[in-house]
């Protein structure tokens, strides 16, 4: 493209919750009009309130509204938006969506369809990664379609093995097996889980690496073949194969290793002609060997830690890239400053196997201040239902050192008030307070390994009495007609002290 391309004057955000709010925030800062789409159950959401315009989409169940390609493209045309940002999840990694958006004469704020397609297939992506010089964990070269073939792979590369869905992600269909007998037993179940979750029962088998770190490299590429990396994130703190705490930089990665894994990620992105923001996920073994896991062709949930340490707004870069601008940042300009940590607050009961929780958020208070960022999409009165992902908020702290970022995170989590449903807030505070976390001794089995330390401690008798007394005083059960103490105004029958 020649001349100076212009950012679109209006962009539709095909998502909901905190990521819709986060994208709209950058659009507003750049003076770009924003269009939200929403299902009726999200009518009062923060994203809908913040956006300049909002278009309701039909759907039952509600989640289907955000997967309705035709309705979203129609909303784009009707609102006059020229581009669609897909956020993450939902349609963000569907090549057919990107294609439909572009066929409709609109800009898809994301990578090329071929790159999405190539990286979306775990088998093809491994072949491409190997060709680009990015090593992969020893394992099957393609899908394994029978128990006997799986056992043959085990004999060849040795146990323990990891079975995982070829088409999947998010831990669905994943199993670790230590012997041929376990492999035989797990194979059928993993296949049927993969089939029901992704409509594709094919499995990959690879060597299971003990105490691995999850490390990922953020890349940015433009339409002119330029690709840079923004350093790594470590996302080793996971429950049920899903990330809960992420940070940048990784305490296990020094400048040399960063340059090495960064160069590999860039090489892979270049091999598929990648443009927009993308993430190359790797695992790091105890000898600091990095192995390719997959490439995510979208913005990541945990992108804010990279933004904090680099000072780069990744959504802004995506928008500029989408209209054909060349990258304005050279690799040498990317500097990692300080340390940033992100905690994902979920509506779930961490003390009961992370069971998702529901309920109405009656009180929502997030701290603010230097080095504190909270990305969330909730308001007081907001219902947490099982219709959507139970993530309530992402809390990010940034400080000159990792120790300070951890201390700040601990304080921020303690000061975050979410009343009305069960959340993992206190659990996260306990995780960041452990010695092992402070020492950076992270691996993806961290939460299981430290489970005993992470049990909710019993409150003291004096705390219990305190809270019982407070509860009694604030209960509507006691007759308040003669009450002399009415410290705070009610809000629709609910009081905040």
């Amino acid at each position, binding site marked *: 493209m020649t001349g100076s391309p212009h950012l679109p004057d209006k962009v539709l955000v095909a998502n909901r919750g905190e990521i819709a709010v986060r994208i709209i925030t950058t659009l507003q800062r750049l003076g770009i009009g924003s269009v939200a789409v929403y299902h009726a159950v999200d009518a009062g959401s923060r994203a809908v309130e913040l956006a300049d315009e909002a278009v309701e989409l039909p759907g039952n169940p509600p989640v289907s509204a955000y997967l309705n390609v035709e309705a979203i493209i129609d909303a784009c045309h009707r609102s006059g938006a020229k581009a669609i940002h897909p956020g993450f999840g939902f349609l963000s990694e569907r090549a057919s969506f990107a294609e439909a958006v572009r066929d409709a004469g609109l800009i898809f704020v994301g990578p090329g369809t071929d790159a999405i397609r190539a990286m979306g297939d775990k088998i093809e992506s491994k072949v491409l990664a190997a060709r680009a010089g990015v090593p992969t964990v020893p394992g099957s070269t393609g899908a394994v379609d029978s128990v006997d073939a799986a056992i043959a792979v085990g004999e060849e590369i040795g146990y323990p093995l990891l079975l995982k869905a070829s088409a999947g992600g998010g831990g669905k269909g994943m199993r670790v097996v230590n012997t041929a007998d376990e492999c035989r037993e797990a194979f059928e179940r993993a296949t049927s889980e993969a089939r029901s979750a992704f409509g594709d029962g094919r499995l990959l088998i690879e060597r299971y690496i003990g105490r691995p770190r999850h490390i990922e490299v953020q890349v940015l590429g433009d339409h002119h073949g330029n690709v840079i990396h923004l350093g790594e994130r470590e996302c080793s703190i996971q429950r049920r194969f899903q990330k809960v705490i992420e940070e940048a930089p990784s305490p296990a990665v020094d400048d040399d290793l960063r340059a090495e894994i960064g160069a590999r990620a860039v090489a892979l992105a270049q091999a598929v002609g990648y443009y927009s923001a993308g993430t190359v996920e790797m695992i790091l073994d105890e000898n600091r060997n990095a192995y390719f896991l997959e490439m995510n062709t979208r913005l990541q949930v945990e992108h804010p830690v990279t933004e904090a340490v680099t000072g780069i707004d990744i959504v802004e870069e995506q928008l500029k890239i989408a209209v054909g601008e060349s990258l304005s940042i050279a690799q040498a300009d990317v500097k990692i400053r300080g340390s940033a940590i992100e905690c994902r607050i979920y509506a779930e009961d961490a003390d009961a196997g992370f069971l998702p*929780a529901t309920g*109405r958020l009656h009180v929502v208070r997030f701290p603010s201040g230097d080095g504190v960022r909270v990305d969330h999409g909730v308001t007081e009165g907001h*219902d947490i239902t*099982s219709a959507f992902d139970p993530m309530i908020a992402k809390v990010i702290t940034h400080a000159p050192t990792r120790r300070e970022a951890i201390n700040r995170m601990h304080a921020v989590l303690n000061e975050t008030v979410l*009343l009305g449903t069960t959340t993992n807030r206190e659990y996260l505070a306990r995780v960041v307070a452990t010695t092992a976390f402070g020492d950076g001794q992270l691996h993806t089995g961290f939460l299981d390994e430290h489970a005993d330390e992470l049990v909710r401690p019993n409150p003291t008798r004096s705390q219990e009495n305190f809270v019982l007394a*407070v509860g009694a*005083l*604030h209960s509507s059960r006691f007759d308040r007609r003669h009450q002399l103490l009415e*410290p705070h105004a009610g809000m629709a029958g*609910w009081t905040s002290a």
Partner: protein
Amino acid sequence: MSMQIQLDGGEFRAVTVVRRPESSLVAFDDNDVRVVVSDGAVTIDGVTEPIWTASGGDDVYVHAFGRSWVVTVVDPAQRAAQESAGGGNAITAHMPGTAVSIAVAPGDQVNAGQTLMVIESMKMETPILAGRDGVVDKVHCAMGDSFDRGALLVSLIETENEE
């Protein structure tokens, strides 16, 4: 007036409250707790802690000491009635959840044990059953609605001189 109080699903115990302008007195078990509330903070026995609360129905949510707590206060008479009968006019939610299907409408004749609606809570579906034979007066939530523990879901038309 004596109520029963429970912390985070623990044991119920009797509690009384006496409110006074300068401080209030909350008594439970053998504790007499003098409470001073001012400006979003509570002082008990010389300990001052900033707190947040949200209250309604039987539950009071409290944020204090960096932790979230649920205090439940119930009227012992009502509790006994609900527990013994299960045949009252009001069918309430025993846990927070979302209505996923509704099987009845006002005016419907229902039999004891019949499913009135199905709720989803903690990713599990639970049928809400009629406690007695009767006629549906009102259905208090629509499909997809979320509600708290203790919320009224369905009411039956009042019948006279049951049993």
